[in-house]
């Protein structure tokens, strides 16, 4: 469903991504890991066109992301995205956060949007919080609202960029639980994370990046078990205490 072919990207003279290729099939859960600055966030943002790229090709559900004339907003509306810092809209109530995209982009009626928004709010265990504002919620709650916001657009796939790394330890699990549930229901997911527990539990693919290159791209069991590149080994050793 998501095909990335020979992707390269530069910031000025600095090459962030070098010839990255991988693909995610319907129902796949792909975990992307690697040291800081290796280009994980950049890679995941190119998938829904939030970051432009200079070389290569990305095809999402038949649509070429980089092609001229692609209706990027329409594409993005079909892919949910969750950020490290939640990025809820602080001036809108939870309910309005959930319905803004549905109403403005999908042109749903307010009633329909609210109904669906609340269904997903319930799904992440926060029904009853819809009239609060983002800053009145804990980090874990905010991130779960962000997931509900993405889900309420009925996405065909979800992108996560370190969804738990800005959270206090107690809150990490409440978010991971929601993500595990999603994965088990068959949602297609690309997840940048250092939570190897999550990867072990639900990933079927793990991608390891360093310095803008994809060094490993293999099944979960292979990644955690079989021999692999020195760098990945180092990285795993450091990350799993």
């Amino acid at each position: 469903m998501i095909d990335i072919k020979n992707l390269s990207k530069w910031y000025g003279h600095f090459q962030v991504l070098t010839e990255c290729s991988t693909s995610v099939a319907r129902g796949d859960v792909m975990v992307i890991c690697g040291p800081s600055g290796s280009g994980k966030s950049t890679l995941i943002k190119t998938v829904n066109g939030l970051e432009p790229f200079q070389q290569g090709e990305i095809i999402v559900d038949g649509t070429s992301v980089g092609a001229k004339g692609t209706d990027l907003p329409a594409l993005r509306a079909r892919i949910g995205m969750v950020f490290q810092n939640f990025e809820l809209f602080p001036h809108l109530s939870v309910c309005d956060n959930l319905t803004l995209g549905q109403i403005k982009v999908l042109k749903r009626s307010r009633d329909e949007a609210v109904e669906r928004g609340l269904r997903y709010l319930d799904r992440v265990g926060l029904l009853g919080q819809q009239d609060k504002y983002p800053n009145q919620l804990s980090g874990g709650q905010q991130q779960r609202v962000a997931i509900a916001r993405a889900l309420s657009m009925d996405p065909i796939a979800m992108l996560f960029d370190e969804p738990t790394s800005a959270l206090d330890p107690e809150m990490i699990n409440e978010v991971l639980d929601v993500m595990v549930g999603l994965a088990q229901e068959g949602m297609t997911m690309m997840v940048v994370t250092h939570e190897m527990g999550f990867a072990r539990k639900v990933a079927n693919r793990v991608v390891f990046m360093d310095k803008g290159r994809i060094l490993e791209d293999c099944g979960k069991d292979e990644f955690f078990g079989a021999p692999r590149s020195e760098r990945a080994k180092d990285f795993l050793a450091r990350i799993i205490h």
Partner: protein
Amino acid sequence: MNYHWNWRIFWEESPDGVRTYGETLIDGLQWTLAAAGCGWVIALVVGVLVGTLRTLPQSAPIGRWLRLAGNAYIEVFRNIPLLVQMFLWYFVAPELLPSSAGAWVKVLPNLPFVAAVVSLGFYTSARVAVQVTAGIESLAGGQLLAALAVGLSRPQAYRYVLLPLALRVIMPPLASEGLNIIKNSAVALTIGLVELMNSANAIQEFSFQTFEAFTAATVIYVALNIIVVMGMQWLERRLALPGTLAEGMR
């Protein structure tokens, strides 16, 4: 000093034989408010527009050109004294029009008012634009990405997310620009608008009660200031993001 104080001057009839000097002052106040108010509308609209242009991504060539245009706009309207801008709009602009249009414009009864509003509006808009840009940039990109990721188009992202947030952030500097435009409207006396300062000056010319006239003007300006500050504080509280300290320490 041998100055003859006469505070009753404001109840005495002014030379036009219709109004008292006090009423002259009130009339001036109304022109001040009208000029500042209309100018403020222009300043906000143009300022938000130009400020937004300057945050467009530089990657697209059109973005680069709009940015450049926005910067040039700000440079021009910030770097020419307001007084000179008023002269340009009042004395120069009509002469540059085709002569029939110019002749029509020049006999508009409210030309000083129109010129004052336009110059105050544009002059202030450059300052507002700088604030708007800073406000949007302070949101540090994350909100824009999130809005785009939801599928909003760029204009929608600005309309529903970035601008509402940025305007909240820049409320205090906007408030002081709002005060400035009231004070700056006094410059319009140089193009003959009989606003508050000018009517105080007229009282002074006709009655020679210089210090009474200026004292009254000063008191009115200070009162205006207090009202605007309180209004802005009220607005700021009302628009404060729920769950932040700006809401007030309760």
